[in-house]
């Protein structure tokens, strides 16, 4: 199976008044065509910035990709000009955002907004019919009537369906969904996930799902990559990572999720929070919160080390040389 999306050593910087922040630091990912990868991490870990870096579009002018490559179907997006990128966005990579109420234009009907997404790449001829068809595909009732409504006339779940319709109207091969259910009610969340799974199967789309919800990843994804403070700390097949997490951060993440679900007497919550990215800790960025931290962790960045078939973790615990030396320098 060939890879639809390959991200190699992607690094993105944001210039701020108080120094440079590196929200995406040497991130590499591969997603085989037709599969789904879940990118998980706490808020502030750089998940969303990774998505923005892939389509090279940032909500702030201060952000820019400083190095690395992004290959879509073998084609290098990092060397494309703005016009080339515009033809990729929406047409070959669809994007679903977190909060459907702010990501829709309040003064245009939802039909116009979906039609606009189609017309941006294929012209206005037949755009309205195509928009109604897309609204039907995302399961909106009476799509022809709904198309004439404004976003404020729809519920949150319906709005998210509209956002998804915009993303899929051009039938992109890759769908990037950034926290697609976070802003929704729990019951609606399940419907939206169902819809995404259904669309993916029917249209043969590859999915990059960004979420902090491990349950969502377990349900939706074949692969998982765990991100912490701008770096990938563990990656592998979803089941293997969930059943046998190898990075202490992943272990902590899973433990806190599981303990909440089972309502155990002792809830295991990870101490501390994501470090300030303006001044990240040296070495492994997780070492201040890590129960197994060794002296080498404070100095050297651990590379991604193989811990199983297709399964890697960026932790010195998995370097036999370091472990036998008893924690290195």
């Amino acid at each position, binding site marked *: 199976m060939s890879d639809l999306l390959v991200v190699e050593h992607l690094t993105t910087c944001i210039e701020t008044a108080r120094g440079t922040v590196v929200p995406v630091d040497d991130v590499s990912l591969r997603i085989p065509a037709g599969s789904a990868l879940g990118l998980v991490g706490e808020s502030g870990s750089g998940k969303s910035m990774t998505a923005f870096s892939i389509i090279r579009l940032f909500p702030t002018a201060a952000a820019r990709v400083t190095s690395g490559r992004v290959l879509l179907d073998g084609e290098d997006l990092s060397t494309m000009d703005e016009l080339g990128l515009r033809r990729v966005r929406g047409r070959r990579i669809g994007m679903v955002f977190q909060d459907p109420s702010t990501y829709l234009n309040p003064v*245009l009907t939802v039909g116009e907004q979906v039609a606009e997404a189609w017309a941006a790449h294929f012209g206005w001829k037949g755009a309205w019919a195509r928009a109604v068809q897309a609204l039907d595909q995302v399961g909106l009732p009476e799509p022809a009537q709904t198309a004439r409504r404004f976003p404020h006339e729809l519920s949150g779940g319906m709005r998210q369906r509209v956002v998804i319709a915009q993303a899929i109207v051009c039938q992109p091969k890759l769908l990037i969904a950034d926290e697609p259910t976070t802003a929704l009610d729990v019951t609606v969340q399940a419907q939206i996930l169902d819809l995404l799974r259904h669309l993916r199967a029917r249209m043969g789309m590859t999915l990059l799902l960004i979420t902090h919800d491990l349950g969502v990843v377990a349900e939706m994804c074949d692969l998982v990559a765990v991100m912490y403070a701008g770096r990938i700390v563990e990656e592998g097949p979803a089941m293997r990572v969930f059943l046998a997490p190898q990075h202490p951060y992943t272990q902590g993440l899973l433990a806190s999720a599981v303990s909440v679900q089972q309502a155990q007497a002792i809830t295991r919550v990870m101490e501390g929070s994501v470090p300030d990215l303006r001044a990240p800790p040296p070495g492994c960025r997780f070492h201040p919160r890590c129960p197994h931290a060794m002296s080498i962790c404070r100095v050297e960045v651990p590379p991604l080390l193989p811990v199983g078939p297709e399964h890697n973790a960026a932790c010195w615990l998995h370097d036999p040389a370091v472990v036998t030396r008893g924690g290195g320098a």
Partner: protein
Amino acid sequence: MVASVEAVTGFTESRSLMDFWRRYRRNRLAVAGLFLVLALSLVALLAPLLAPYDPMSTSLDSLQPPGTSRHPLGTDDLGRDILSGVIWGTRVSLLVGVTAAATAVLIGIILGAVAGYYGGYTDAVIMRLTELFQTIPRFVLALVVVALFGRGLAKLVLVIGLLAWPQAARLVRGQFLSQKSLPYVDAARALGLPGWRIIFSEILPNVLAPVIVLASLDVAQAILLEASLGFFGLGDPNVVSWGGMLNHAQGYLRTAWWMSVFPGLGIALAVLGFNLVGDGLNDAINPRLHE
């Protein structure tokens, strides 16, 4: 959640228009202004039917005071009917006012939107140009341009339009600056929409309300400027305008007051009407401002 869905699905476009009218109606003066504007528009449209005489045709009945059945508002020194002049003048004033304001707002929208959306160097250049135009005394430049390039309705419209755009440009730029960082703009960019589509079909509809308010105030300004130019003898000599009538009345201020009072009243009413409508629209769009 379900209840709120049902509560909002009753909304339609016409419903929000009704809401708007309800808010507009609260301002009595604005309603009066609207009627004034509608009445003047009707007069302008029906001028050939309403005017008893050809406003240009002279007669031997010169300098007749108002109140006679043949000339209710009197006649001027050449025996031209004042009422007919005022009626035809409405047509010229409104035509010039509306088209000049439309020109100004159109230029302002394009330049302001481009400056606000693209920012950086583009913004700097356009804004310096805007400031340049704002520092030039409007009326003096209008005098110079009309004196150089001649008089004529189309030229008047262009001159006034070219002079009045900076205000609209600044307003639209400010609105674009605040809108362009909103998530729906990022979403549009992520869908691959070209820049001009994002500017004109995504952002512009969101900022139109204050622009419409400004446009109605601009109409009043343009009417005033056109009348001023006419008063200085720089109006189109081939049509009857309020400013032109005032110009002609200068020599008769003491002997035939009706020659200046009635066209002057026309200017005052038109300017007042459009200003009241502008204020009313502003109040209706930002109802919290005056509570």
